[in-house]
């Protein structure tokens, strides 16, 4: 039990970083990014390729993966999504759906369907906490995830770009008349979300095996985070990650590991039906 709780909390940090990008896009661009899971997996594959080519530690490969993902997000937003947004929510949603299919199959062609893993010197190490044995990787995931989210929060609060992003999400028209180029900010927000996916991808990749089709699993986790934490709320994602991680691991502990995922899905469905604006909505 203690083991499940500690793991749940640590995994919560990882879930939060997986979900925060989707939450940003949801809250600011008002886009359901159905390709978010694929972007996380794509980042893991980028990291795999870069560390294979350069011998860099996967963590350090983020120096390259982060900017690449930022650029991809910025480009997708500016070239495709911004053009479609005046037509309503469905067209961008379907485009991102198509994008997820494309990414998944491109990865499949390039890397094959074999499971991959980002190797990390601490892969097999554990440490004891009370009578629980915790994999060090979980701790690293949690610490990095939480730190990135807190840094993002500071960025959103104290920089012009961050404030502009929040202003756009509050009132798009009012933001325009304050001199904010809304389309540009959408692009930047998408880019930032993609950087968080890059971090999430590398963390996921060093924690679990990944293969081309794992994206939908991370999309659903992200969606759980958004639904529990409330869209666009950065702090909400932390709490949501914690709740979701704990619920899954406790569900797994009590009802067996096959039902671990199911427990998560059921929580999302209940949340959606009862309080789709998130737990912290007023």
């Amino acid at each position, binding site marked *: 039990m203690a083991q499940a709780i500690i793991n749940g909390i640590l995994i919560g940090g990882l879930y939060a970083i997986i979900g925060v990008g989707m939450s940003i896009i949801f809250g600011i661009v008002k886009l359901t990014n159905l390709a978010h899971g694929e972007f996380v997996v794509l980042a893991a594959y980028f990291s795999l390729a870069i560390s294979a080519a350069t011998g860099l530690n996967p963590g350090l490969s983020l120096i390259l993966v982060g900017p690449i993902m930022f650029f991809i997000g910025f480009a997708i937003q500016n070239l*495709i999504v911004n053009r479609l947004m005046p*037509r309503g929510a*469905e*067209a961008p949603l379907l485009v991102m759906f*198509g994008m997820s299919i494309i990414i*998944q*199959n491109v990865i499949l062609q390039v890397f094959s369907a074999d499971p991959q893993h980002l190797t990390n010197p601490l892969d097999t190490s554990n440490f004891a906490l009370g009578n629980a044995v915790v994999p060090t990787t979980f701790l690293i995931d949690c610490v990095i995830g939480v730190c990135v989210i807190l840094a993002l929060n500071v960025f959103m609060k104290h920089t012009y770009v961050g404030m502009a992003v929040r202003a756009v999400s509050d009132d798009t028209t009012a933001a325009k008349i304050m001199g904010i180029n809304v389309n540009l900010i959408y692009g930047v927000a998408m880019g930032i979300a993609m950087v968080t996916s890059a971090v999430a991808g590398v963390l996921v990749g060093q924690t679990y095996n990944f293969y081309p089709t794992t994206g*939908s699993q991370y999309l659903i986790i992200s*969606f759980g985070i958004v639904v529990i934490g409330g869209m666009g709320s950065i702090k909400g994602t932390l709490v949501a990650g914690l709740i979701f991680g704990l619920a899954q691991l406790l569900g797994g502990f009590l009802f067996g590991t*096959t039902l671990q995922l199911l427990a998560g899905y059921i929580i999302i469905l209940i949340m959606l039906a009862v309080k789709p604006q998130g737990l912290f909505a007023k």
Partner: protein
Amino acid sequence: MSKSSKIRVVVILAVVIALYVIPQSPLTTDNTMRIGLLIALYCTLGLMWNLMAGYTGMVSLGQQIFIGIAGYNVAVFATTFGLPFWAGMFCGAGISVLLSVALSFLLFRMKGMYFAIATWITSEALKIIFTSWEFVNMGGGMTIKLRPYPDVFELYYISLTLVIGAFLVVFFVLNSRIGLGLKAMRDDDDASAAMGVNIFRAKLLCFMISGFVTGLCGALFYINQGSIFPGPGFGISWTVAAVFIVIIGGIGTITGPIVGAIIYVFLSEFLSQYQGYSMIILGVIAIAVILGLPYGIVGTIERKFGFEVLSTRRTMKNLLSGGRANVDYSRGRDLRVSK
């Protein structure tokens, strides 16, 4: 009935008769029948997704719920109980309807993207349940054993009848008072409520029809295939197919799914030796169509030539065309009059 609509009815009847008669010619092979069957089934799948997304604004990403349920029903009825395929087929479709009613209480509280994701998550949950349910052989899947096993000709005729039935149902639903309300609902819930349309009931009707027909469709798919596994059975690729078919053809058009299904089946047949590439190409085509032809192929042709093969005289703007629709509620029933 005007002269042009008389001609139209004659043309449609001729095409339908041809579709029934052609297979009797000596030139048709099992393979052409198989392709005809797939086009009919994918077209049905697209029509049912379109009925929800294109006309009522409920973008479902969970059509595979009904496919998987019906497919498993056929397998269980045939293999476990030794019953004929149509028993499993209709029972599967019936369970799909019951499921759609049960889910509606949960799903209809949600709108837009919430609805989309919730339908998907429901299908993922079912996937897990079927993967760990011993009665259906868990992740090992089931083989469908039927004696006698219907051949591809029989399945073609059943599927052809199904797709024609699906067209008629969609046509009549959309030309009824409920259909008018549904189209209003797609653009504005409040407006249609003001028109006195019971939104919940109208949505539920569509969801039930969609569940029933998609269920029949799924049963036929799996009878044709011979075996079912939880992963593909409840896989998102069913919805991917439906979405691509409708978008390429033209969302919110009645005939769009035919064109979309033909393109989809031919693309995936031609590219079948390059598994994976077909999905990439389909994805690229779909995105290109959304960007370049917001009304899809059929929708664009209709707009250009002011011609509709099966008119429902949409006064609401197309789902993907965006902007506020110019809704003239005062005209009421005039909306049904065809162009």
